[in-house]
């Protein structure tokens, strides 16, 4: 467990992937463009000495992932956010079934999310039901810009999407993570327009809508929606690494997000393997407002606020009892493997 100035910080990494972008798995040029684009984001924000080579990046595998998250990365639990892209990748890029390989090995450490695509119709509904049956998922990650045949995307406020959201509500799948973020080649930028979240969030007040990447490059549209809807949250993946190479821009962004979205509605995510939590978490935890920033935004980036963002908010959404988890992690398989048991002892706070 991470400690910051002697205080424990229970970290739930809200956005992790286990992907396969090996050449053998790519069946469309979009697949190659997609991973190359991811790699640009990786190198763009990763300290030089921490950057991976392309081969590692294409397929890092389960063993490395477990080490990067838990042994080296200060993470206590991680939430898998799948990205199917089955038109680009033979077996899919990062599917729930692929993620399950690891999640089922360490069920106490991972939350496994599913996905749906309303264009799949009845078959899609069956897929969602199957994921609920197999893995008891509590959330889905949605990719509104995913290509499917001639279609280049879909909207969360369409009748077809509403049918799936109704199904989610019925099955108790409460957390709807929508990728609304920077354009990713070759996907169409407008398919990530954040405004369709508004109608969906109003129509399904019992579901939580987590806008991943806080809607970049439309953070303002996202903030307007999140201010009005209490069930709209922001995922910090993409914004978080500003803390590493542009700390004042990070502070400015956090000032806005805390003002408009609020400290109870923001979730940390490393976006692993795009970025690694071992350097990202300290960068975020060390971030502070200057006197001027505090006065300008009228909000705090206090240790309490950061603890909420780092884990407590996600714990609330996913019914995770942090104290019970700490007790469990004193001697679970991961703690035994990496000698982490001591960090979960009561006394470790001092």
């Amino acid at each position, binding site marked *: 467990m991470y400690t910051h100035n002697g205080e424990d910080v229970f970290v739930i990494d809200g956005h992790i992937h286990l992907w396969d972008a090996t050449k053998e798995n790519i069946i469309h040029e979009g697949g190659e*463009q997609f991973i190359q*684009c991811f790699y*640009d*984001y990786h*190198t*763009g*924000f990763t300290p030089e000495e921490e950057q991976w080579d392309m081969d590692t990046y294409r397929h890092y595998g389960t063993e490395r992932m477990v080490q990067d998250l838990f042994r080296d990365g200060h993470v206590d639990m991680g939430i898998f956010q799948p990205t199917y892209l089955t038109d680009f990748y033979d077996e899919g890029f990062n599917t729930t079934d692929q993620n399950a390989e690891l999640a089922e090995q360490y069920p106490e450490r991972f939350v496994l999310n599913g996905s749906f695509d309303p264009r799949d119709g009845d078959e899609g509904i069956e897929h969602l039901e199957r994921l609920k049956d197999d893995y008891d998922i509590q959330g889905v990650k949605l990719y509104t810009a995913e290509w499917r045949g001639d279609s280049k995307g879909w909207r969360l406020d369409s009748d077809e999407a509403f049918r799936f959201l109704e199904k989610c509500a019925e099955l108790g799948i409460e957390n709807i993570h929508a990728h609304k973020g*920077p*354009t*990713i*080649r*070759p996907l169409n*930028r*407008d398919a990530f327009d954040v405004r369709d979240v508004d109608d969906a969030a109003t129509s399904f007040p019992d579901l939580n809508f987590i806008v991943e990447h806080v809607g*970049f*490059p*439309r*953070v*303002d549209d996202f*903030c307007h929606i999140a201010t009005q809807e209490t069930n709209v949250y922001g995922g910090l993946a*993409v*914004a978080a690494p*500003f803390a590493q*190479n*542009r700390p004042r*821009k990070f502070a*400015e*962004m956090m*000032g*806005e997000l805390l*003002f*408009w979205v609020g400290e109870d509605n923001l979730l940390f995510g490393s976006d692993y393997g795009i970025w690694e939590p071992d350097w990202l978490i300290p960068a975020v935890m060390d971030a502070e407002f200057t006197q001027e920033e505090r006065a300008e935004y009228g909000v705090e980036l206090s240790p309490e606020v950061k603890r909420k963002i780092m884990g407590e908010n996600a714990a609330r959404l996913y019914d995770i009892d942090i104290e019970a988890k700490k007790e469990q992690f004193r001697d679970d398989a991961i703690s035994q493997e990496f000698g982490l048991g001591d960090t979960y002892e009561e006394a470790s706070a001092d």
Partner: protein
Amino acid sequence: METTDSPDVADGSKSRPPGEASSSGKTESPVNLDAVRERLDRVHDPELDRSIIELQYIKTIDIDGSTVTVTFVLPTAWCSPAFAWMMATGIRDEVSTLPAVSSVTVRLLDHMHGDEITTGVNQGLSFESVFEDAEDGIEAVRRKLDHKARFARQHAAIKTLRQAGLDPDQIAPLTRAEVDLEHRSDLAAVRVQDGALTVTVAREPLADYLAKARETGLVTDETDRLFADREGDPLDPEPEAFESTLRDARLARANIEGQATICESLHESRNGVGFD
């Protein structure tokens, strides 16, 4: 030849540090490199609302007699084709205004639609004919971004007036006629309360803002109000409503600057910076 509408160019060269003024390409060419750069500085990345010179998108400027070739590269290969198109046409049109230039060729490198954009812009085609499946026309996209940029720039302009002691009642009804941008090179004068009071403030935030307000058609006449909310409606001087619009403008600016942070990071890692 030098006598046509080039006061801006002359101004630009004058204000340049002497050290840079001598860095022209081929000495026998009538085209001055600094003049080309000064024109390029007027071309903006429409999403980031900053000059492509400042953003270091220009890779090379080749001057051969009266022919100029400009190559540029963007932070990502998947930068919106519409944005890339606006920059490419901006380069072509700005450099073409130089009287000594007879033809301009623009090349967009390392972009997923680099060839289409390069060919289309150099042949004078329309965006809509090159990208037939684009959802919005180029002018609609430009307007949307310009309105956002106008609103974002308003934050700094109003902040400047607030710091000079003006209150919402005085700021909200201000018209173009009440602002004198030529008061001094670095100071603007603002008349409030029907001319009963004049305050001087830093010129730049107001001048920057007014340039965009004019471009978007918000402030074209002397009697037009300077400021408007996100939708273009006049500002409400009631303190709470006024503050809320100001915060919204700050958010618009933070969004643009946040996106600029992403683009800068990608640009650094993909293209390096400081290339000549």
